[in-house]
């Protein structure tokens, strides 16, 4: 008959418990090192092997390379590198296949923009995204 009083007793007991919420956005949310946020790109490490482009399940990465400016050195260096964050699902596969760890996940996740065009991030933007970078990238 008085089942609801039992429920009320439980609710009242919870009043003394610690707060579990965060004052976001005034305070940052603590995130684990492995958290998959927006990628950081190191142009100097990239060897233009195209593996990230091939593994991307949504085809959101575009890159072009150019010849090494130093004629004594072989291979290519990166020219342009774009990620379209309208498509990117932050699945972590690009960082998993990268042999030189030129692309690494960070803990930054705030991607909201006023225009869809702004979600198109280029090499410079991804290079400057250098806060909260994942420390251990490969298991």
């Amino acid at each position, binding site marked *: *008959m008085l*089942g*609801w009083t*039992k*429920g009320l*007793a*439980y*609710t009242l*007991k*919870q009043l003394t418990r610690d707060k*579990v919420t965060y004052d976001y956005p005034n305070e940052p949310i603590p*995130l*684990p*090192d*492995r*958290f*998959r946020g927006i990628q950081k790109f190191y142009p100097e490490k990239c060897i233009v092997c195209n593996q990230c482009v091939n*593994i*991307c*399940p949504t085809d959101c990465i575009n890159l072009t390379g150019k010849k090494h400016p130093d004629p004594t050195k072989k291979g290519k260096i990166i020219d342009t590198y774009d990620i379209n964050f309208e498509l990117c*699902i*932050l*699945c*972590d*596969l690009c960082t*998993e296949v990268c042999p030189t760890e030129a692309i690494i*996940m960070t803990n930054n996740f705030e991607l909201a923009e006023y225009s869809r065009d702004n979600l198109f991030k280029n090499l410079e933007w991804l290079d400057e995204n250098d806060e909260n970078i994942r420390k251990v990238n490969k*298991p």
Partner: protein
Amino acid sequence: MIRTEEMLLNVGPQHPSTHGVFRLVLKIDGEIIVEAKPVIGYLHRGTEKLAENLQYTQIIPYTDRMDYVSAMTNNYVLVHAVETMMGVQIPERAEYLRVLAMELNRVASHLLWWGTFILDFGATSPLLYAFRDREMILNLLNELSGARLTFNYMRVGGVKWDAPEGWIEKVAEFVPYLREQLKGYHQLVSGNEIFLNRTKNIGIYTKEEAIQYSLSGPNLRSAGVKWDLRKDEPYSIYDRFDFNIVTRDEGDVLARYHVRMGEIVESLKIIEQAVQQFPKQGEIMAKVPKIIKAPKGEAFVRIEGSRGEIGCYISSDGKKEPYRLKFRRPSFYNLQILPKLLEGESISNLIAILGAVDIVLGEVDG
């Protein structure tokens, strides 16, 4: 002169109680439902068709987005199917990590169901308690895989990450904590008269009907069928754990509530045993080629997901992409019984019956 006529009532697709984009077209006579017609497909993304142009590793993030409330089991069914075709032996440690992740995810999924199901009746506080405890599981899984819902954690041959330092201990601490909280949940809801009045003896189906409609998971077990693939057709390492299959004979909404609550307890038992047996060292990935190619042929595997039996059928012609991929998505099959259950019911019972079926629209639409 009084003239009565049937009325057409549209529920959804943006109605909060449909838990997604699900539409119901009801023909009502006063407050009694004469006919109910579910309309689905608003969230259809063509996962199975897309998969035909993707490598097996690339399909894993897509499976996360089917049943996004328990993505680990979806991850597992795909890699399990590919591993069955390739005949890969999975390292011990990876198997334990998989089972821990899947069972934690099952508990999280049932907690979310518990909170939102009671929210549908108008009780707001249980939702907050359920989400508070579910959040702890999501944090654990976030530490493990790097995401809160779309984990993309399993790989063909093992798992992506090893358990971080201290993670197993945190899981071990969580089990008694949730057991304690479950007592509170029962105190809060299970004995409440309003709740009992709204769930008891409504939405009843028999054992035979449940099998005819190919229901699975808690929906099947609430009608008294003792069938759980973890016991009856053990996959992974489930044969090493001691747990029970929770069943009820009533087949009503309340029975489905008790089955799910009981399953949380059983999952906690599995987690506890997996933590105790967890190997101290070992590999997390089997030796598999870098580019995975399933041999020519076909395979079908099924596992016990949070909502029922998830199946995965792969037909391969030996390339790195599947020739055809098909998922048996339990929510889709469980939903088929809804028009039958709603016929002749009062409109006030609609939300309780729909809620108890526990659908996730990402999975229904595929």
